[in-house]
């Protein structure tokens, strides 16, 4: 056992490991998140020795590196095991029994959750949803996803770890992630050949300029006399393509604003694809990137063509690290085919490159300005707005950030035209929507529907019987009860980024909401006071109810917290953090009512448990050595031995 300050590797070996990483990323501080990620993959953790070397190479203060490393859940500045196991802890994983499997693995490996084994071999902990809800329970081992966990697979994993078998030699089927496409429409059914959308866009006749309202600067990086970019922007606007990330901003307006943003000397425009699919219950972008990466990259290239951008980024959530090599291969193939790089399709000056950045466990980076901060190698803190990314984005230059699905749809708009696209879906919601269906249903997976599909239709298609609730859009979305199942997935009714989580009548909706409250507390970036403190206060109140000590006063406090978070938070994470609790209180009140005490005000903490250390130290167990946290019906306050023996707040069956 190594004590003190173990470095996994000898100093000279560290240089050998880190130098290629630094070279690959240009020893540039703006690539710090990528450098840290690869450094950790090489060295197991970000030891002081690693940080010493990065500090010297990058020329930034050590505290900046530590500040960034301390922000992302997947970066470790304390020694971790050579095998780092993180169980996905979304509510769907809970429903599939992930806690028992975590305990089983810990027992097998003789370790405590959250701790590293004494021999430095392994650590086991949990993490936010890893996007394998349709094939859970799931875990990440050294960043690579393993789904469909059961006792047998856990036992096998335990043995592989104990025998120190390299990840590369683990059975390949452990790492097989299924696409589970259950219903395909224009996107998932697309057989578009790479380059077709670009060719169509370039061939389109010059625009009449009616829709492209500002002609000032549409052609940077592209030769004069080309009608394509302008006409393309017209088509995107005519399509009424709205952002698929949830907020539904009209893509054409965003692109136009970015294209028209003034450029200072030396500046350029950027296209960023947001593949930081962190909303618990969402996994449709994973499937798009797995099965239709060309469509996504083509959409980005189409956007670059419209904007005159020469550089693009795909920001891939860390949980999808396993897709990285495959995506790089797609990019290489596109480069070889003349669809990326210089003079795309032989058009002089049409240059565009895409770089992939991988996240490191921070849900807030799905917010576009936080994502840009992360791309710049910083803590993923949402920026103050205005200014917005379309004028002041990556490196303070005009930047379009869109969702994976938006870019895929944009490619099809470029190919088939705006009118074609607009004819699909509803009046205000053109096109189709991918839904990530999971939870209590026979056929979890990805479903693509034209906008306007009702919740009931989706439930019927996925084989959900006896649903008591559907969480649409994940924790920050909306929780629907059966009397609302006629409502429709569309911007004018239920807008969603795509999560569709089904709960049948055996589920405890209070525990669902409590899982989400823990999620928000874990993912708050900590920048603004209301969200940093408020999400933790909310989590504590939900735990208090879970422990059986809640009161109507606590209800009122939750409602007050909600108002405060809505009013004062810096970004959407805080604005929506109380939604799941308020939704379930409104719709599933009995799940709360049976947890409420008769008293209107109850202690904030478990009084009897607070005496436990003193009982242990004194050996006392007399009546005076106990306190009742909540008085029994009609009873006086007094002794009640054993009432502190409640289950730990980690427990709780969903």
């Amino acid at each position, binding site marked *: 056992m190594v004590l003190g300050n173990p470095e996994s590797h000898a100093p000279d070996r560290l240089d050998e490991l880190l130098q290629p990483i630094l070279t690959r990323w240009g020893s540039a501080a703006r690539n710090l998140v990528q450098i840290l990620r690869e450094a950790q993959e090489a060295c197991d953790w970000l030891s002081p020795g690693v940080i010493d070397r990065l500090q010297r190479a990058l020329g930034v203060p050590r505290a900046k590196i530590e500040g960034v490393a301390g922000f992302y859940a997947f970066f470790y500045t304390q020694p971790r095991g050579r095998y780092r196991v993180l169980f996905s802890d979304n509510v769907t994983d809970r429903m599939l029994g992930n806690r028992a499997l975590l305990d089983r693995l810990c027992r097998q490996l003789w370790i405590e959750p959250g701790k590293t084994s004494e021999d430095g071999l392994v650590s086991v902990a949990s993490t936010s949803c890893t996007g394998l809800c349709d094939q859970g329970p799931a875990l990440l081992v050294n960043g690579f996803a393993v789904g469909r966990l059961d006792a047998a697979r856990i036992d096998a994993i335990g043995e592989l770890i104990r025998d120190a078998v390299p990840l590369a030699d683990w059975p390949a089927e452990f790492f097989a992630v299924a696409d589970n496409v259950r219903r395909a429409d224009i996107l998932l059914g697309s057989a578009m050949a790479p380059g077709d959308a670009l060719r169509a866009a370039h061939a389109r006749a010059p625009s009449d300029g009616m829709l492209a309202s500002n002609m000032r600067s549409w052609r940077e990086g592209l030769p004069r006399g080309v009608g394509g970019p302008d006409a393309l922007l017209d088509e995107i606007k005519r399509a009424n393509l709205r952002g698929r990330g949830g907020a539904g901003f009209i893509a054409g307006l965003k692109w136009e604003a970015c294209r028209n943003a003034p450029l200072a000397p030396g500046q350029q425009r950027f296209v960023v694809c947001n593949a930081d699919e962190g909303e618990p219950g969402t996994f449709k972008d994973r499937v798009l990137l797995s099965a239709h990466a060309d469509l996504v990259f083509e959409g980005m290239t189409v956007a670059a063509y419209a904007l005159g951008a020469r550089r693009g980024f795909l920001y891939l959530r860390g949980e999808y690290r396993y897709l990285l090599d495959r995506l790089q291969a797609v990019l290489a193939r596109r480069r070889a085919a003349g669809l990326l790089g210089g003079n795309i399709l032989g058009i002089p000056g049409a240059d565009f490159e895409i770089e992939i950045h991988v996240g490191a466990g921070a849900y807030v980076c799905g917010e576009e300005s936080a994502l840009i901060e992360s791309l710049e190698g910083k803590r993923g803190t949402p920026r103050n707005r205005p200014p917005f990314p379309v004028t002041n984005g990556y490196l303070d230059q005009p930047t379009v950030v869109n969702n994976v699905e938006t870019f895929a749809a944009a490619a099809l708009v470029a190919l088939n035209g705006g009118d074609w696209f607009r004819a699909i879906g509803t009046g205000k919601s053109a096109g189709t929507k991918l839904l990530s269906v999971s939870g209590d249903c026979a056929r979890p997976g990805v479903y693509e529907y034209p906008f306007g599909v009702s919740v009931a239709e989706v439930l019927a298609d996925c084989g959900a019987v006896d649903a008591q609730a559907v969480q649409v859009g994940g924790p920050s979305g909306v929780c629907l009860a059966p009397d609302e199942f006629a409502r429709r997935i569309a911007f004018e009714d239920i807008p969603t980024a795509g999560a569709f989580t089904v709960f049948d009548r055996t589920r405890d909706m209070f525990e669902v909401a409590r899982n989400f409250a823990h999620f928000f507390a874990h993912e708050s970036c900590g920048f603004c006071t209301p969200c940093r403190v408020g999400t933790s206060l909310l989590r504590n109140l939900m735990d208090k109810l879970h422990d059986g000590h809640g009161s109507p006063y606590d209800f009122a406090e939750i409602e007050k917290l909600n108002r405060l978070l809505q009013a004062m938070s810096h970004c959407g994470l805080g604005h929506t953090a109380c939604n799941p609790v308020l939704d379930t209180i409104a719709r599933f009140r009995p799940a709360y009512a049976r947890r409420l005490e008769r008293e209107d005000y109850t*202690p904030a903490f478990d009084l009897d448990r*607070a005496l436990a250390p003193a009982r242990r130290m004194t050996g006392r167990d007399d009546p005076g050595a106990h306190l009742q946290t909540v008085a029994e019906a009609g009873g006086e306050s007094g002794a009640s031995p054993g009432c502190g023996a409640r289950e730990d707040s980690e427990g709780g069956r969903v």
Partner: protein
Amino acid sequence: MNAPPKKRLKVATTSLAGCFGCHMSLLDIDERLFDLLKIVEFDRSPFTDIKAVGAAGPCDVGIVEGGLCNAENVQVLREFRQHCKVLIAIGACAINGGLPAQRNHLELGAILEEVYHAGHGLANGTIPNDPELPLPLDRVHPLHEVVRIDVFIPGCPPSADAIWQVLTDLIAGRPPRLGYGLLQYD
């Protein structure tokens, strides 16, 4: 002075994990004590030596100084809450745990070890286990984390004027309000 005397407000006071400084500050209202005693009578309080709060009927106002550091503090506070219509938390310790709460970053076991076992000059000391002694809580808590508190008078201690302001507001049926100069945390 021929009008029949109004029924006097019944007031109970106590100090839990506090230093009685707030009580001293209450006495600091000086000659206004005479005015006060015309309109209030004291139930359980260090001033009366009555042992049980509310034994002779409910109290109008309870004033509690100090935080909660042991089981007895909790029991006394609950009795005050049960028998007082308006419960006032007075002073820094009652409101955020104050000085005693500065032990909260230490484990209780380590504190008891240090005080009774390992500390300088102790030979074979034992941690007292007499059932007469109240057991300490693992952490010191302010009052509002156990019972509902109606009025807070911050300060260490609050000034006599602040106390007087709150009491006269309450007696007059006004919501108590401490303005600049009276509202202080030290």
